[in-house]
């Protein structure tokens, strides 16, 4: 297939060109960057038909690229979010330093993610996986804050995952002698039980790291919050989905074929559930929007993991739908934070308040994102949540559903914190000068917001490709018995019909809104937020009345016993121990030449003593 080569050539060439175009002029650079992302996107969706493939070989290894329905679904996420985030980036990066660096890594990330999705063999999968890892690592350390800790933590976790995957790949290769995923799947049935268990574990380790699953999630908050927001929207929205992508494939093709009694899925699902709960609780505690969204991403990925690891039809659809939704709303929310960061210079809830009248479009996008995130009807997030609950209940995961419900209810707390912290509350004088973000930033956000609304009523738009993808993976067609364009069913036949609900909601809402505004909008007049009943006190203009410090304190007190245990601390302890060990090891090299000579003698003596064993 020609198109694949062209797409990747454009990506690579464009990335390098964009990098160097910064020396010429920033406008050229912007245009080149946009072209580098948008042209391949166009080419991919117009020129690549599902089912096409491109075999070739490298270093004596035969490789295969191709698109199937399932991959297409994820390429939709990657390229869709990628293009929007690219448009957003142009506005976001205006006037920032190291733009070339940013654009280069951005393009490389998008390219590698697309590569992952179209890889039909393990080697190119791994190569793209690693490119994705290091390009995202370079983005994580973009700001230069705390790179030694956060960046390296991210990379080490990624590397542990990736190396686990590499191990699995070469083990598979030693059995099958090819690297094709197809062959791996076929040979899996004939492997020994030990391999059958270990190979999925190793693969899932890699995917779980990227999907920020519970004990492996500690990199996520730092990484998400330290990358530039324009990238984080892609990072959290699309890049983490690659973990989900891999997970689905492994779960469907391997874990499904494990003999009964191995609780693979259960363990995974519970880990996902715990991830969701803990991520939510930690998100509530954060005062920094980036951190909050980062933990929230961890939590949301937990839901997705739960969905895909339960693995019934409905659960799989729920997981994948949530994945799409998560890409949308988390992409939007990170963009919102980016816009706020650009306009105000900070992302801390305790500093920024009352932006709603200054940045109304941003607020709209944020509102849509938050409603979708909270899973409240009539936006798309609800569809995913609904399917997830129903699938958990119908597949006998009673306690898990409680855990999930707990975390999604608790999610309201941070959702509210996000909206309140930035947009609502007192309008302080300090932020009176803030303007709405530039159009290139607002348009992608608002577009995604609108798309979320549409998806809330017509989820069939996304459920259709998901269904096709799942059919690729061997599931039966679920149209008409699990979903229709705007109806969703569970496997017991209960359903939610979305259109009348939407219309009712809108009707009621408009009716009462008009009632409140009975005598016309002119009748009620806007007064500033300083005009509040504060015991008759007159707040001065520069007096900060905003309530934002210790926002969810009572709740945090209630859950304090759970929060006391931090995974991070254990890892830090472990790492410190290791460094101590390393320090001890290097003392072997004492610096005394005679000692080294003694080592030589001792070596000979030892080898001679054990020569019967060794040789």
């Amino acid at each position, binding site marked *: 297939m020609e198109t694949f080569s062209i797409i990747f050539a454009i990506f690579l060439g464009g990335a390098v060109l964009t990098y160097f175009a910064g020396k010429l002029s920033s406008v050229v650079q912007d245009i080149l960057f946009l072209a580098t992302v948008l042209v391949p996107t166009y080419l991919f969706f117009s020129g690549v038909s599902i089912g096409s493939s491109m075999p070739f070989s490298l270093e004596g290894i035969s490789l295969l690229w191709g698109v199937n329905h399932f991959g297409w679904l994820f390429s939709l996420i990657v390229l869709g979010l990628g293009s929007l985030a690219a448009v957003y980036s142009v506005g976001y990066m205006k006037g920032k330093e190291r733009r070339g660096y940013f654009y280069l890594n951005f393009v490389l990330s998008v390219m590698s993610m697309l590569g992952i999705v179209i890889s039909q063999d393990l080697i190119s999968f791994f190569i793209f996986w690693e490119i994705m890892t290091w390009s995202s690592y370079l983005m994580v350390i973009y700001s230069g804050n705390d790179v030694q800790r956060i960046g390296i933590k991210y990379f080490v976790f990624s590397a542990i995952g990736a190396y686990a995957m590499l191990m699995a790949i070469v083990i598979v290769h030693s059995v099958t002698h090819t690297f094709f995923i197809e062959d791996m799947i076929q040979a899996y049935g004939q492997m020994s039980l030990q391999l059958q268990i270990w190979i999925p574990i190793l693969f899932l380790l890699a995917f779980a790291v990227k999907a920020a699953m519970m004990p492996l999630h500690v990199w996520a908050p730092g990484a998400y919050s330290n990358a530039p927001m324009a990238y984080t929207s892609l990072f959290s929205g699309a890049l983490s989905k690659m973990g989900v992508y891999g997970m689905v494939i492994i779960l469907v093709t391997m874990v499904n074929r494990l003999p009964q009694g191995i609780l693979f899925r259960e363990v995974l699902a519970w880990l996902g559930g715990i991830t969701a709960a803990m991520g939510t609780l930690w998100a509530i505690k954060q005062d920094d929007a980036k951190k909050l969204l980062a933990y929230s991403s961890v939590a949301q990925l937990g839901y997705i993991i739960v969905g895909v690891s339960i693995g019934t039809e409905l659960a799989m659809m729920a997981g994948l739908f949530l994945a799409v939704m998560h890409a949308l709303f988390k992409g939007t929310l990170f963009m919102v934070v980016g816009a706020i960061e650009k306009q105000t210079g900070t992302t801390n809830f305790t500093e920024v308040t009352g932006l709603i009248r200054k940045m109304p479009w941003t607020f709209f996008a944020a509102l849509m994102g938050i409603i979708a995130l909270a899973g409240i009807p009539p936006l798309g997030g609800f569809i995913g949540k609904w399917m997830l609950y129903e699938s958990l209940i119908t597949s006998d995961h009673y306690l898990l559903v409680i855990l999930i419900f707990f975390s999604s209810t608790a999610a309201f707390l941070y959702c509210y914190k996000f909206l309140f912290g930035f947009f609502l509350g007192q309008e302080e004088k300090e932020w009176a000068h803030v303007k709405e973000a530039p159009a290139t930033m607002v348009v992608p956000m608002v577009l995604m917001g609108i798309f979320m609304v549409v998806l809330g009523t017509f989820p069939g738009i996304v459920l259709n490709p998901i269904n096709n993808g799942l059919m690729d993976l061997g599931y039966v067609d679920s149209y008409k018995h699990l979903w229709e364009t705007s109806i969703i069913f569970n496997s017991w036949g209960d359903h939610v019909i979305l259109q009348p609900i939407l219309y009712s909601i809108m009707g009621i809402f408009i009716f009462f809104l008009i009632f409140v505004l009975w005598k016309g909008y002119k009748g009620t007049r806007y007064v500033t937020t300083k005009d509040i009943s504060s015991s008759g006190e007159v707040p001065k203009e520069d007096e900060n009345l905003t309530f934002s410090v210790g926002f969810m304190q009572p709740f945090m007190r209630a859950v304090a016993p759970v929060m006391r245990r931090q995974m991070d601390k254990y890892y830090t302890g472990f790492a410190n121990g290791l460094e101590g060990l390393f320090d001890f090891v290097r003392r072997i090299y004492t*610096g*005394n030449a*005679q000692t080294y000579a003694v080592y030589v*003698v001792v070596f000979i003596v030892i080898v001679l003593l054990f020569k019967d064993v060794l040789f």
Partner: protein
Amino acid sequence: MDSSLFQLLDYGVYGTAILVMLIGLYGALVKKSLLKVVIGLSVMESGLNLLIVALGYLKGGTAPIFSDGFLNGTNKVMVDPVPQALVLTAIVIGFGVTAVALSLVIRLYRHHGTLNIDEIKNLKW
């Protein structure tokens, strides 16, 4: 002389050579003075050379030279020439190494003001 004595002597020569090597090794490993270390290394090499020559020796053999004595004499046994050649080479190399070593020792002494090997460990860990 009877053959057993010869054999004993053989072992004696080997043993002596090895003893010399071990003495040299001891010197290199234990003595604290840089010079003694270098001497130890040299002694070790000398012991090795001795050993090699001894290995190449054949009982009653003459020097490996196609001289008149060899060609005309009754004793047609010649010691192995190869080890001797090797030893010559090794001696030359050993000489070079020792020279380099001594020059290094001089430099170290200039900088450190001591020959104690224990005090010359700026580079460690």
